[in-house]
């Protein structure tokens, strides 16, 4: 049984201009110990998916209107809030993009770390502080006992993200959700943080859901990948399936459009014409139809069903066999 199984999850937001569907009937699952990547461009619903799993949608605008999120057999969408609080930070940890806004600027690092430990465990203050120092040491922060008394602004960006990871992992969760954990960081620091997440994952045997827009990060760190476009899953499968045999025109377009170190300088990059449709005026059929070079009449009429390319490799496209 997978650790996390999401079926037909649908999330809507109330906005001034009416209700919009940010995530539309998505299904995927993550096995224990596995790293699953969710990749897509801004507005594709990848972060809303993470917030839906954690039930951290902005209230009262964001609502899960359908589907289920089975985590270790329990449906998180149906849990009472008091139960959900025991899951958050304890069984599922979360790392956000901007460490400065994820940390509380007026509390010390130590207080923020120990808070979760005290809340979820039967620890005394001394034990919680000792555990906190251990985990800071574990995420590679030098002189952790000194850092415990410092405030977030005293740390560099990379160190802050290490602290956020330490907080997320303090209670040894079975699942870590990392939403663009390295996007705000420099490449050399990104390499350090990704390496750290990988190490801790192996050591603690947890699953990781990594949300990013960077296909390079996905290829280097994930085993499974879900490609999202305009609130729906375009394609999912193992990284080898998706990178070696991209079956959705959107995945193909994305992979072809990235400049690589090996491409001929100043050569024409292939592009995906047009832009992502707004959530208020989505096409009636396939979401990608208006940008797709292979679109036919059928694509404009109905939403393509999920089709199986190979075992665990699925695509949502009418024409994947022809392209």
């Amino acid at each position, binding site marked *: 049984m997978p650790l996390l199984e999401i079926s037909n999850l649908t999330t809507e937001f109330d906005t001034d201009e009416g209700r919009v569907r940010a995530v539309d009937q998505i299904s995927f699952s993550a096995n224990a110990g596995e790293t699953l990547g969710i990749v897509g461009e801004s507005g594709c619903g990848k972060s809303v998916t993470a917030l839906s799993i954690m039930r951290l949608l902005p209230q009262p605008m964001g609502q899960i209107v359908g589907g289920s999120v089975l985590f270790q057999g329990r449906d998180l969408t149906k849990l009472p809030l008091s139960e959900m609080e025991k899951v958050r930070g304890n069984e599922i940890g979360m790392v956000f993009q901007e460490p400065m806004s994820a940390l509380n600027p007026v509390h010390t690092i130590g207080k923020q770390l120990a808070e979760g430990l005290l809340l979820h465990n039967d620890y005394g203050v001394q034990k919680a502080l000792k555990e906190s120092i251990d985990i800071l040491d574990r995420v590679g922060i030098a002189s952790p006992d000194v850092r415990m008394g410092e405030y977030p602004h005293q740390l560099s960006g990379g160190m802050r993200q290490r602290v956020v990871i330490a907080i997320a992992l303090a209670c040894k969760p079975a699942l870590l959700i990392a939403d663009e954990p390295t996007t705000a960081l420099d490449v050399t620091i*990104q390499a350090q943080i990704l390496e750290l997440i990988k190490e801790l994952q192996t050591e603690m045997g947890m699953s990781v859901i990594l949300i990013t827009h960077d296909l390079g990060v996905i290829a280097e760190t994930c085993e499974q990948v879900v490609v999202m476009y305009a609130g729906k899953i375009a394609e999912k499968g193992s990284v080898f399936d998706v990178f070696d045999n991209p079956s959705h025109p959107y995945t193909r377009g*994305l992979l072809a*459009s990235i400049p*690589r170190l090996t491409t001929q*300088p100043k050569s024409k990059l292939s592009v*995906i014409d047009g*832009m992502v449709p707004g959530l208020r005026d989505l096409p009636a059929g396939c979401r990608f139809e208006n940008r797709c070079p292979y679109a036919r009449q059928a694509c404009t009429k109905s939403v393509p069903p999920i089709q199986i390319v190979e075992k665990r490799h699925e695509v949502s496209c009418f024409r994947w066999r022809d392209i």
Partner: protein
Amino acid sequence: MPDTPILEVRDLKMHFPVNEGILLRTNKFNKAVDGISLSIQAGETLGLVGESGCGKSTLGRCITRLYQPTSGSIFFEGQDITRLKGNALLPFRQNIQMIFQDPMESLNARHTVGDILEEPFIVQKIGDRISRKKRVQELLEIVGLPARSTSRYPFEFSGGQRQRIGIARSIALNPKLVICDEPVSALDVSIQSQILNLLIDLQKEFNLSYLFIAHDLAVVKHISDRIAIMYLGKVAESAAGETIYHHPKHPYTRSLISAIPIPDPHRKIKRQVISGDVPSPIDPPSGCSFHPRCPHVTDRCKHEPPQLRFIDDKHLVSCHFDL
């Protein structure tokens, strides 16, 4: 090349005073740019790569004279423009233009696109109303925006379209040199390639020279003829793009290349992760500023700052050793 370069920068320094204490006395300086020399030929792109805080944007702003450099000189087509003021600067403003990272912040939200694009001509007193309107239409067509955009406001456009407006404004006065400061880093992958293609096309059509500032080495290598790698206000290495990628000599360049995530799941090379953060330019390390993070550090590196030296006729490295 015997021709006078479009731009030549000699030993440029930009030190910002840091005010501290109750009396806000200036005891320290942020040495954002600390002795940079470079040149750009007509029609050439020089890529400038470095991590946040390395001074790459400051250098760009010094060249456009948005900042008054502390010392050193800037030559445009052989003429020293470092100390020009007021009206004397006007013809150079016409020839050196800038594209900014965030088009939402660099376009006036209260002006229509027509006003934004017409303003350069008003400032430079070029043409009458009718000819200016005509030129604005041409500009929109060049960057691939619909002609009716003139009466609309920046917020009505997507990120990629806004960057097109920024590009249209920068080429409005037929400049010879455009400073592109992270022009694609705020954009989604599928839009990024559209903008890179546009920049490359414009360069061919109008024989533009670019100083292309970015943190993403893959993007920079794609668009540049030559690349300069910056670290803490200094050039660490500069050479042709292919040379930088295939034969990097500076340990920092090597670690930057190694840190880039490659979108290929089969490539499982162990990354050479460098430890530590970028030090503060207010209090840079003694000797070689990269020495606290360098895997090849020796005693000499800690005391003696390396000079930029030629290792062949176009390849400059600032390292004591031939690694």
